[in-house]
């Protein structure tokens, strides 16, 4: 069912991605409980370690997901086999082993000792959120990324070039380039934070948007049969808007870290426009699905694609805008409002786009056009369980955040941090329940790959 045999390497990447995703959620649920029962699993898994594992697994599995998606997409778009399938497989194992060792390192050794063990002092890069990996792991990531980009780059350059695969390639190169800032660790704490955002912000609100837009466009073309030309124009505009707003939009992280105060203006103005590209993606997905030429048997993939467009708009666009203007951010900076936004944006945009690709491509790699009836029903259930519980996680954290802002920062006689945390504990309990539902959704999702049932009747395309 695959058009090119080498697309099959994607399967490895996707399986690993889902495995690590499960780990991420397990640690999330553990932390959610630690939020209300401070000594849960102490001293085996301290909160700070669990947090590091949770966020690092997220990044690593999304990278697996992006790579898998690219390996599936690029041969089909370029109309040729992958340049070097063996390299893709080799890099998979290297990345998996390096990733697993790193996570084990976090869990088994105190962080400072891990830094010593990996000789962090030679080139200190550790200790920054999302980028906690030992320097040697970071170097490994760069090598894997280079080999990966070389592989798909050569495939594209020697094959058919489409807007979709060129945009994807640009996004992936950008991902690798901005990661290089994680090696730059100035002593000055302002500069340190400043460049940290060059990785984190310019990833999720810059180059990753290109990756997301191209993956979404690919799946939408496949499942709707809409003309490429229509889609390509939209892609250009989405990308232009993403870059115009997103690059200077980095300024919304430079309000209070010691950078010059003109950032309050630039950051507010430009990041206020960042919802536009996310909104355009929603408009684009709605439009394409509305104009569809056929009803693809893989209904689950269509659902994921629409879900991505909607949830990314909600999480990144709406919840991002909520706290992006400097006068608002003055109060909300670093509160649960941020966590609410972080969860919904990451889930809605990047988790969901990878799951969309998996949903579309997995059946093809397993020799069917779409999952069987029962598998699809289960998958759609898991979609709703995960998505709705993420909406609730977001709402509960938003509630906790607003209360926190009010009691701790806005009120005339502000309360201390920990006193406020006690007062919002109810929200944390509810978040934990929603998190458990998310976990159930995820388990159902995994189970859907093994469900047996009637084949879907195929519409011809």
């Amino acid at each position, binding site marked *: 069912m695959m058009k090119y045999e080498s697309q099959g390497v994607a399967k490895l990447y996707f399986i690993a991605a889902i495995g690590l995703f499960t780990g991420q959620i397990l640690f999330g649920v553990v932390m959610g409980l630690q939020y209300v029962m401070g000594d849960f699993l102490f001293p085996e898994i301290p909160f700070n370690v669990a947090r590091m594992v949770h966020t690092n697994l997220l990044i690593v599995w999304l990278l697996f997901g992006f790579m898998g998606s690219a390996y599936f997409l690029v041969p089909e778009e370029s109309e040729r086999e992958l340049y070097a399938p063996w390299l893709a497989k080799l890099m998979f194992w290297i990345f998996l082993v390096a990733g697993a060792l790193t996570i084990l390192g976090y869990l088994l050794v105190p962080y400072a000792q891990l830094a010593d063990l990996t000789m962090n002092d030679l080139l200190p890069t550790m200790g920054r959120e999302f980028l906690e990996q030992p320097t040697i792991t970071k170097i490994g990531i760069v090598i894997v990324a280079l080999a990966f980009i070389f592989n798909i780059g050569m495939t594209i350059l020697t094959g058919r070039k489409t807007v979709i695969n060129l945009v994807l390639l640009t996004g992936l190169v950008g991902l690798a380039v901005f990661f290089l800032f994680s090696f730059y660790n100035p002593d000055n704490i302002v500069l340190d934070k400043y460049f940290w955002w060059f990785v984190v912000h310019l990833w999720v609100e810059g180059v990753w948007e290109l990756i997301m837009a191209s993956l979404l466009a690919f799946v939408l073309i496949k499942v709707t049969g809409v003309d490429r030309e229509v889609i390509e124009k939209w892609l250009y505009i989405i990308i232009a808007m993403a870059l115009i707003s997103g690059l200077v939009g980095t300024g919304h992280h430079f309000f209070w870290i010691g950078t010059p105060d003109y950032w309050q203006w630039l950051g507010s103005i430009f990041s206020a426009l960042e919802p536009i590209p996310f*909104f355009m993606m929603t408009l684009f997905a709605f439009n394409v699905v509305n104009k569809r030429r056929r009803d693809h048997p893989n209904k689950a993939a*269509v659902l994921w694609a629409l879900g991505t467009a909607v949830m990314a708009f909600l999480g990144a666009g709406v919840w991002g805008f909520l706290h992006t203007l400097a006068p608002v951010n003055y109060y909300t900076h670093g509160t649960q409002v941020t966590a609410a936004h972080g969860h919904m944006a990451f889930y809605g945009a990047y988790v969901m786009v990878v799951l969309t690709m998996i949903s579309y491509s997995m059946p093809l790699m397993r020799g069917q056009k779409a999952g069987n009836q029962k598998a699809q029903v289960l998958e759609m259930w898991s979609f709703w369980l995960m998505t709705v519980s993420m909406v609730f996680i977001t709402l509960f954290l938003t509630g906790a955040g607003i209360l926190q802002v009010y009691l701790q920062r806005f009120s005339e006689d502000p309360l201390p941090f920990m006193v406020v945390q006690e007062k919002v504990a109810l929200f944390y309990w509810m978040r934990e329940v929603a998190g458990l539902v998310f976990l159930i959704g995820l388990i159902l999702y995994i189970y859907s790959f093994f469900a047996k049932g009637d084949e879907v009747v195929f519409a011809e395309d």
Partner: protein
Amino acid sequence: MNSDELQLKRASKAALFSLLNLTVLPVIGFIILLLIYQKSSSDSIDHYYSVIGIKTNVFAGIALLLVSGLMILLGGFDSPWTWVYVVSYFTFVHALFILFATWVLVRSWTGEKLKKNILSK
């Protein structure tokens, strides 16, 4: 331009201004929407979409401004819980209206009416 074409243009304009009224052009968007409504003859597609736009926005006005206003009134301006409800409610429901208006806009481009489900034909 024949009249069908004109109607279709107006229909998508109505859908667009309904969305704009919900987002960057509040009030002005609604006035333009009313003007489009006035120009349309009943039973035409532009009439259909301007009515939907007006209904959406009136309903959104009630659901967002009135309900939030009531929440503040009843909850008290100085109570943190008021703001917990108002901000979460307003943000979420507002976003839902925007998403709905976006879908309407997309439908209007094809000149068909709203119905017909997303996932089944």
